[in-house]
């Protein structure tokens, strides 16, 4: 039986090959066939996840909630010291210097990344802004969000902090960060579905020692992950409860 792996589409394009190396490495370790499928769009991916297409998912925290509570997935590891944080940025020349300076009617550039969008909207609340008094436009990537800020087509943009930090120096020099979230307990995780549950102990052992072998270490580097850390069910439930409080 071949299993199916997918990866939340919010990583930088430079790391795509890393996930192919990861898949090859993992198949050898486990001695099972795994097919990797990548997506550009969160929505298209979520549809296929709901259709039970996948057995192994590197998921953003928002999807982890659905996978665990509704689809019987189990989180097994998370990347060490990598939390998902959101940035609200403006054009460097923008008259807005704090979130509270943003006003009703302001144009917000976002992506279909559900975590970042949710957290971005929460950070706008302190300015009395919500979806009813802002003009929200969804773009295909963070680079496009940045372009919209640079050419004046948006007043504020939402970014995954990791993605913001990976934008070119030139682009970043033309933007200014209004606020950066510091939540630290919300992060991506690797989840295993019911069809693959019997492999969980082997997956966890392989991943937790991945940085010890030469090949594994190289693969981790290409994914921009230092090491994996174990995740138990209470840690997962805690993160999901927290995300629940952020969703209306």
């Amino acid at each position, binding site marked *: 039986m071949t299993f199916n792996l997918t990866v939340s589409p919010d990583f930088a394009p430079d790391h795509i090959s890393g996930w192919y190396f990861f898949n090859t490495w993992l198949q050898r370790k486990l001695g099972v066939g795994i097919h990797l499928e990548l997506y550009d769009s969160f929505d298209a991916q979520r549809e296929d996840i709901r259709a039970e297409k996948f057995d192994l998912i590197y998921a953003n925290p928002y999807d982890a909630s659905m996978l665990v509570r509704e689809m019987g997935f189990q989180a097994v590891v998370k990347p060490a010291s990598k939390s998902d944080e959101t940035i609200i940025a403006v054009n460097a020349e923008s008259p807005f210097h704090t979130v509270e300076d943003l006003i009703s009617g302001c144009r917000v550039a976002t992506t279909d990344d559900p975590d970042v969008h949710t957290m971005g909207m929460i950070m706008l609340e*302190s300015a009395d802004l919500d979806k009813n008094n802002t003009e929200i436009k969804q773009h295909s990537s963070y680079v496009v969000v940045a372009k919209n800020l640079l050419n004046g087509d948006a007043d504020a943009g939402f970014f995954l902090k990791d993605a913001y930090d990976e934008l070119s120096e030139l682009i970043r020099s033309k933007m200014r960060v209004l606020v950066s*979230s510091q*939540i*630290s307990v919300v992060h991506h995780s690797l989840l295993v579905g019911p069809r693959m549950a019997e492999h969980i102990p082997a997956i966890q052992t392989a991943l937790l020692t991945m940085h010890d072998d030469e090949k594994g270490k190289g693969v981790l580097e290409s994914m921009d992950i230092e090491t994996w850390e174990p995740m138990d069910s209470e840690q997962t*439930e805690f993160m999901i409860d*927290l995300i*629940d409080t952020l969703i209306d």
Partner: protein
Amino acid sequence: MSEQDTGEVRTVEIAYFDGTKRTTDIVDREVPYPDGKLIVSRTDPQGIITHANQAFIDMSGYSEDELIGTNHYILRHPDMPAVAFKGLWDTIEQGTKWHGYVKNLRKDGAYYWVKATVIPNIRNGQLVGYTSVRRKPSRSKIVESEALYKTLLAEE
């Protein structure tokens, strides 16, 4: 910082729902909510604190050791009407999510406003506790809440 802050210190007795009381100094000084942070705590089903994140520790002014094992009412500010917390408990005991604006009392007597959400933590169908996550409230919501709580308090 609220424009009406006077920095005035008054000594008050706070009476809790469980019949206990404490006398403490209240300072009319707002500590601004830190940008980008979430203040997180968890309690057991009775409201005894079992977990507090660093932002909670920083904003409340208590150490982690002082918080864990303590009733969450340690943050109760005398300007908060009892009816607000009755609404909170009635909602979460029914298993549903509660949202509200809360003025909290710090260890040093100063205060901070939050927009709080409390949800029940269900594991294998059992209630094991509650999680509260607070975020930065807007100035206009604080002003509205101040007026509302003043009215409600006067009626108690």
